[in-house]
């Protein structure tokens, strides 16, 4: 779990304004990255992350067990990202993505970006929560409100598609041509 923050840090955020500002500053990069990985759109990711941070700040006083902050906050950002995606579906070209999104010159990152971008929305969210955040299917189910069996199905399809795409990209060009014949 990436957002495993110290309980005192969470309590400080629940208690006072300075603590809340510090908490938002800490979670913002993670929220934005997850939103971007799901939405593949810099503007929409910023909207989703901003709305999720505000929702988190509003609901924080009701969080009784600070040890579950990580899974609780991931649930918020994923739900906001899915809401934004359903509200304003958009696509982005690779050029736009390179300009505004991934600042990483490793081609593997771009291959993965393409592979994830090709997945349907729910599979994308499941992949991010499972492979990046490290949640189990039952935890993803709790976060997204979908049955665990559906999540496992999404993950199976996503895994199959990712393997296929990434392995194809990893092959040398001549092998790729041969396999296409």
């Amino acid at each position, binding site marked *: 779990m990436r957002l495993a923050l110290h309980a005192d840090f969470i309590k400080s955020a629940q208690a006072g304004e300075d603590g809340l500002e510090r908490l938002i500053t800490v979670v913002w990069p993670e929220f934005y990255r997850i939103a971007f990985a799901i939405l593949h759109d810099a503007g929409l990711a*910023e909207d989703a992350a901003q709305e999720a941070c505000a929702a988190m700040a509003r609901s924080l006083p009701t969080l009784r067990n600070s040890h579950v902050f990580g899974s609780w906050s991931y649930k918020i950002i994923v739900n906001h990202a899915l809401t934004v995606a359903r509200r304003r579906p958009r696509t982005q070209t690779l050029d736009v993505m390179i300009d505004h999104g991934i600042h990483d010159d490793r081609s593997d990152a771009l291959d993965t970006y393409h592979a994830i971008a090709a997945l349907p929305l729910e599979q994308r969210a499941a992949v*991010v929560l499972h492979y990046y955040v490290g949640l189990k299917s039952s935890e993803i189910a709790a976060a997204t409100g979908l049955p665990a069996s559906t999540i496992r199905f999404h993950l199976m399809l996503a895994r199959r598609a990712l*393997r296929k795409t990434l392995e194809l990209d990893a092959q040398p060009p001549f092998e790729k041509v041969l396999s296409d014949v």
Partner: protein
Amino acid sequence: MYNDARIRSAVAMMIDGIAPPPVPLLAILRSAARPPVAAEIPAVHWLRPVAAAAAIVGAIAIGVPLIAPSVVESVEARIAQILRWTPPSVPPPHWLTSQLRSQEATLASAQARVPFTIVPPVGLPRDVTVLSMATSPSGVYDKLTGKWQLGTQVVFFTYRRSGSRSFQLLADRFDPRTGPPSRYQYEDTGRLRDGMPVLVRHEKFTWRNGDQVMTAIDGDGITADEIQAIRNAMRGVSVTAAQTRSELDSGTIDKLYRF
């Protein structure tokens, strides 16, 4: 073979490579102070008049910086800090705003009123049903003299489309004195109890065709992709948005539009 561990590593590497923008702390805190609203983006009224000079006269921002509220004395100064923009020190006078009235037009009559060659929009979304045109004078604030004056006429293209949606495109004469345009347009949707405005951010697109400069912002009525399709169909040349506050402030005039 891409097993789970390799997929996990590839996904983590990709997501870790995403560079987040600066945290819009004040916007988040303002939004958190409001009761939750239905998940929808308010309709765009970006050319709504003057009440929000900040939203109209440039309404400019590159991003939302972190600031220490203690060093900012007034609401206006805080807005300027948030927008990274220096508003005109003199508000537009009543005699000026009262003259910013739009007048219906056809392409021919509009062409007769404006001092530039109108290049009408093409490449519009397929579900556009109604077009109406209007012209209106603009207001011009001279930063050097600190005075407002009536500017030349501009053209508003208003389109209606399915789903009770509509959008506007604004055509004006290109004027290098305005400096580079902002990347975002802020819509003032109301006030909090402490007087702080509730601002909704829209992406702004500006392109040139000859001496005409056209402006559009995304929203419920039109998406960024659709705006870019119009710009491409018009073979418009994108005007690069300002990247820094000094670039934003480099113009010697600000313009005020009212539909």
